[in-house]
């Protein structure tokens, strides 16, 4: 049975602490470069701060983690890559980026409506000796290629190897959880198999509370959000960029 991995993020539980961002960077050997800025940095997972646009005591704020939504249908980035460096893994529904084949044309970045793709503007580098702290399961990307969230594919790979060693065909769901979901201190980020009707995350994704960003584009993203706060939902579901005065982050 093929899986369709996805996430449900409860925005009401997100405190915007940023644990997921650092856990993600650490798991995936994302460098932290002194030259990088908020516009050129590498944040495969990015928590953005949004507000209701009001001032004074009526102002409210919330945090929306943004990462690759692993679009299911007509995946914008897969379609545009000239050399098949992006593809949807049929067995998992994960949109995979192959840095070894990427030409760095950045067409996929312009195609992604979520701005969830990042370009390696610099050579990755670490202070002397720190390369010993790199995660052995993940290859470091070279300068000039695009990268993004692959739902911690190295963890999936490890889980598959473990299952294979045990002579099983399918992985134990307990063995595979992306670093962000694992790190989230409030359990706001929840990861699961959307193809499994009994999976609690799958159930949550199908609940009326769940919504997706830019759902009307028709790309069937597998990144769901939920919030009970009316303004958060209204903001997230409005396709007009009318809140562009909002401080974004």
């Amino acid at each position: 049975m093929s899986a369709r991995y996805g996430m449900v993020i409860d925005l009401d539980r997100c405190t915007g602490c940023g644990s997921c961002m650092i856990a993600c960077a650490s798991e995936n050997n994302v460098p932290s470069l002194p030259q990088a800025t908020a516009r050129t940095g590498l944040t495969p997972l990015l928590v953005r701060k949004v507000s209701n646009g009001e001032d004074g005591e009526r102002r409210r704020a919330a945090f929306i983690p943004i990462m690759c939504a692993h679009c299911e249908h007509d995946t914008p980035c897969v379609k545009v890559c000239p050399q098949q460096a992006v593809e949807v893994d049929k067995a998992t529904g994960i949109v995979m980026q192959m840095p070894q084949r990427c030409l760095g044309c950045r067409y996929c970045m312009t195609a992604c409506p979520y701005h969830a793709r990042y370009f390696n503007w610099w050579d990755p580098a670490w202070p002397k000796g720190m390369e010993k702290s790199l995660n052995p399961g993940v290859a470091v990307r070279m300068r000039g290629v695009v990268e993004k969230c692959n739902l911690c594919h190295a963890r999936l790979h490890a889980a598959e190897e473990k299952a294979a060693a045990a002579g099983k065909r399918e992985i134990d769901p307990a063995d595979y959880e992306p670093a962000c979901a694992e790190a989230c201190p409030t359990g706001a980020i929840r990861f699961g198999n959307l193809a499994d009707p009994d999976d609690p995350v799958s159930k949550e994704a199908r609940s009326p509370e769940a919504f997706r960003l830019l759902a009307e584009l028709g790309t069937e993203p597998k990144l769901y959000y939920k919030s009970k706060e009316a303004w958060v939902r209204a903001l997230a579901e409005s396709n007009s960029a009318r809140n562009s005065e909002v401080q974004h982050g």
Partner: protein
Amino acid sequence: MASSTLMDARWIARGEERAPLSRFLLWLAPWIVLLAIGVYAAGLCLYYGLNQTNMDNRFAFGLWIFLDLGIIALGAGAFFTGFLVYILGRTELKPILNTAVVVGFICYSGAVSILMIDVGQPLRAWFTFWHPNTHSMLTEVTFCISCYLLVLSLEYIPLLLRNRQLKQLPSFFVFEHQLHKLVPVLAAVGTLLSFFHQGSLGGLYGVLRGRPFAFRTGFLIWPSTFFLFILSAIASGPSFLILITATVEKVTGKKLVADRVFRRLGYISGLLLALYVAAKSIDTLVWLNFTSRSEGFAPWQFYSHKPFGTPILFAEIVVLGLLPACLLIPETTRRRRWILLCAAAMACSGVLLNRFVLTVQTLALPTLPFDDFLQYRPSWQEIASFGGVIAYGVILYSLSYRYLPLFAAPKEGDPPHVSGH
């Protein structure tokens, strides 16, 4: 100096009058400086990577893509003139053909070299040929542009081999002649390729479902921008040839091409422009009323960010589209050279504006409801590389004009030429 002047004269077609070498070099000097700076900037980008530019994760395409799309549109004159002359048999345009080939070659080679800097891993550019994704517009662009650049080179080679020194090699000369005989084949292939990649360049943005400002529905796999780009390119190409030739005439002080050729080009440009404006208007209406709304976006919000308001849309369609078309089509306005030139310049600007809007405005506009409208200012390296390509074009055209028979007309019993003072 004297001997270098003599060396230089040996390469200039016999009997052609060209500026003295010193003046020619003086003319080239600033362009060479510009080119050198551009090459240095491009070198920086290749050596240190694209961090030398001011592009970023959201403004992933910048000035360079605008340049590519712009000059490829203007370079469309090459294939379109070839198409008119060889396929449709409009031989009256033959005098402009050589210049069209050189301009086309400059535009395409310039665009390809900028593309090579613009990608993060130029050494892997050939992967597109090895693992092509046939669904990607960029694959189509890559295949067609590289093939068409080859075609343009093959069309340029005969011209090159007609240089006074090179044609003294019988083997070159005969090859040139044999190749020249096959140019109609190349023109036909070039037409096919150009139609496709001009369209694909339009499709490049039209297929971006995630960018509702650029996304268009269309016919089969091609969004409407595919067809609009072809139309606008072949409309602006002849106008650009008019501008180039008129500029060369102005600079050299010589009458190179008959006025009727200019007028014919202007008429073709005007007709196609009118067609383009009509198509573009329909497309804009469809997008405003259906496409954008179907993706859940109120289209007018895209024009709420200064300076990208509706005046740009008006300028693109009316001021720089409909107006030049109206000036180019009637014989009375077209006859006046200054009107012809102004209208040609407006047509080219309109198409450039269209490319600018599609590349830069698309990326500047927010998609997520909490995105900002983004500003981007190119770095000096980007501008210098841009300038380098312009300088490369000017230099290559100047050299071609000086040493190759761009506007060679058959010699009629001309009076003995006296010179030497």
